């Protein structure tokens, strides 16, 4: 298939990545103002961008929630993605400080999240591929990607550790198996994949793009459009082809060592010896005097040595 006219969607779940747990009461305290992408979400966005490049497709970053998801969407915008915020019925619409949460409240109801996301995605175009992080960082169960696949009538591959994209809307994925083995998965669009935060790092936006994104107005999915799309229901289920399983162990990845020796790298990192005591030539002097000089030097350098008189022998 040609995915050129399609859209690749990154489903993001920005959240406070360092929620506090009250050590006395066990209550969880989250701060919406500090919401950012989890490592898995960042991986999902990176793979979506790669898919968009490989297929010449539009890339759209979608997040469900209140104003707290806007900074993460702006980050996606700085990387060239279209962005869309999908309001949640229960989400707070403004940023505020820390708040105490019940555990079930943290990640939201996956059914509700999936319904609004799938409706908004449908209203924005036909997705060739939807990539999600493998779970929300706030006690998420990882159910949303599977439910999205169901809602969108797409094939699903969850918990991938690597993705490659071939022409014709083909996705090659890898998933972990026990004992260091890998499972290779091949599926065709439309598909929903979730990825672990493994082996990929989100690209950096250029400075100009980062500056421009700061003022990007993030559109909000209209409730009427999402409701209409929801009413239309899911399209026919995609055909999922399952081949005969074969064991596969990936080659060891050789990472080139850093340049320079350990000593040079430590010196470079610490700046040690940049300011040092300049060399001093003493002598020629008698052996006893030379020994005293050496001992004095060692003492100044913090080395524990005995009295000068102890040096003999």
């Amino acid at each position: 298939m040609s995915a050129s006219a399609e859209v690749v969607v990154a489903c993001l779940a920005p959240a406070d990545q360092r929620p506090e747990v009250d050590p006395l009461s066990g209550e969880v305290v989250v701060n919406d103002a500090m919401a950012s992408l989890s490592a898995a979400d960042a991986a999902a966005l990176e793979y979506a961008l790669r898919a968009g490049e490989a297929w010449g497709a539009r890339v759209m970053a979608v997040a469900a929630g209140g104003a707290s998801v806007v900074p993460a969407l702006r980050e996606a915008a700085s990387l060239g993605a279209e962005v869309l915020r999908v309001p949640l019925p229960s989400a707070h619409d403004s940023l505020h400080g820390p708040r105490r949460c019940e555990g079930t409240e943290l990640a939201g109801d996956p059914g509700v999240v999936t319904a609004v996301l799938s409706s908004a995605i449908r209203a924005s175009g036909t997705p060739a591929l939807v990539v999600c992080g493998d779970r929300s960082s706030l006690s998420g169960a990882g159910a949303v990607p599977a439910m999205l696949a169901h809602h969108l009538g797409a094939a699903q591959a969850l918990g991938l550790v690597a993705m490659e994209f071939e022409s014709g809307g083909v996705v090659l994925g890898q998933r972990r198996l026990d004992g260091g083995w890998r499972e290779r998965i091949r599926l065709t669009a439309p598909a929903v994949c979730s990825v672990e935060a493994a082996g990929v790092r989100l690209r950096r936006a250029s400075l100009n793009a980062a500056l421009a994104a700061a003022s990007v107005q993030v559109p909000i999915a209209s409730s009427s459009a999402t409701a209409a799309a929801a009413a239309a229901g899911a399209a026919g289920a995609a055909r999922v082809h399952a081949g005969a399983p074969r064991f596969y162990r990936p080659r060891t990845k050789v990472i080139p060592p850093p340049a320079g020796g350990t000593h040079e790298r430590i010196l470079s990192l610490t700046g040690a010896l940049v300011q040092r005591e300049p060399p001093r030539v003493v002598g020629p002097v008698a052996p006893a005097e030379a020994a005293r000089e050496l001992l004095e030097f060692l003492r100044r350098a913090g080395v524990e040595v005995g009295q000068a008189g102890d040096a003999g022998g």
Partner: protein
Amino acid sequence: MVDAVVVGAGPAGSAAALALARAGRSVILLERGPFPGSKNLYGGVVYARVLDGVIPRWWEEVPVQRWVVRRSTMVLTETQSLSVDMRTSSWGDAPYNGMTVYRADFDQWLAGHAVAAGANLVTSTVATGLIWDGSGRVVGVKTDRPDGNIRAQVVIACDGVNSFLAKEAGLLPQADAAHHTLGVKEVLSLPAETIDERFGLGPDEGLDIEMVGVTRGIPGGGFLYTNRDTVSLGVVVSLKGLADAKVRPEELIADLKAHPTIAPWLRGATLKEYGAHLIPEGGYDTMPPLTADGLMVAGDAAGMTLAAGIWLEGVNFAIGAGLAAGKAATDAIAAGDTTTAGLAGYRRALESNFVLKDHQRLRRAPGLVLSQRMQGPYPKLMCDVAERMFTVTNPEPKPGLVLLLRRAAKEQGVRWRDLVRDGIETIRVFR
């Protein structure tokens, strides 16, 4: 090309960006963390009077933990403690004297004002170096983003205690451990009601205790601040003294927590955070030059922490310096002269307000406070005198204060003339 780039969205950087943006100048505020304040450890005291003319009624919106209504200076030995305790209800009313805050909240709040005024905040971006023109003038900064060079008429380095930009410009020496201390802190959870009861505070009232004599003779001191439902407890010690004593900083905090005066306050508390940070405590005499061609330095990067024994302040000095830097940069840009001479208004502004006036007046305080006698025998001497003064010795008649002082001085090996000399010096330093 922008008018100014400010590196570091701490109090100094945000204040500088705020001043520039309000003057209508284009300014980029760079922050290496994912948000301003993200890498700070601090739950400490901020004196925010300096904001009165900048953010009207700031106290109605600032993310405060508690308003400080009680301030103690405490001298400790292993078994004794002597406190000078000041409490006033006037500090608990607007416009307030001091407050305990979490820096992650406070920095974000102040940077938000800079952004609202028009500054462009770019987070997760490290300034990796300065850009120079052919004549040796700073004309921008390099960043770690692709195509990340920013050219600006003025660079304001507010990049913290270990300012790489100030070092690259030759304003700061590469290493000056002698003028830095290490602050080590634990944040301990306690229910807010327990804090209120144990420290004698109302619901929003806070306590700030500064201590001396708790660091095993290593030059430095301790602190305890009450936040809403946590207590910040820690020590600030000389780097060299710590290395020479071969003591781990966590051992000093353990001593402090086990002290008979402190331990009851912390009963049942649970560790929430532990961390450490360098503090520039050299004072006025170790401040670097504040400007170079196209470059200004403010906040911790310029060593503007005031560590003068009874005054331990920094954020207010950083904000004051940042505001002055922003104003001076605005004037220099308007005049078309951002050379060292053109930026000289910055230092003049600091000399005419509290930032350099206080630092200059108290320039000898760090040396006095961290001196061997102040840190060694004096805490024991003071506690012994107080203990004997309040010990009833019937049927012996009560001894006089001078006699008690002489006895304690003799026991601690302090010569009378040193005691008098240090007393006179203390009066001179804090006059």
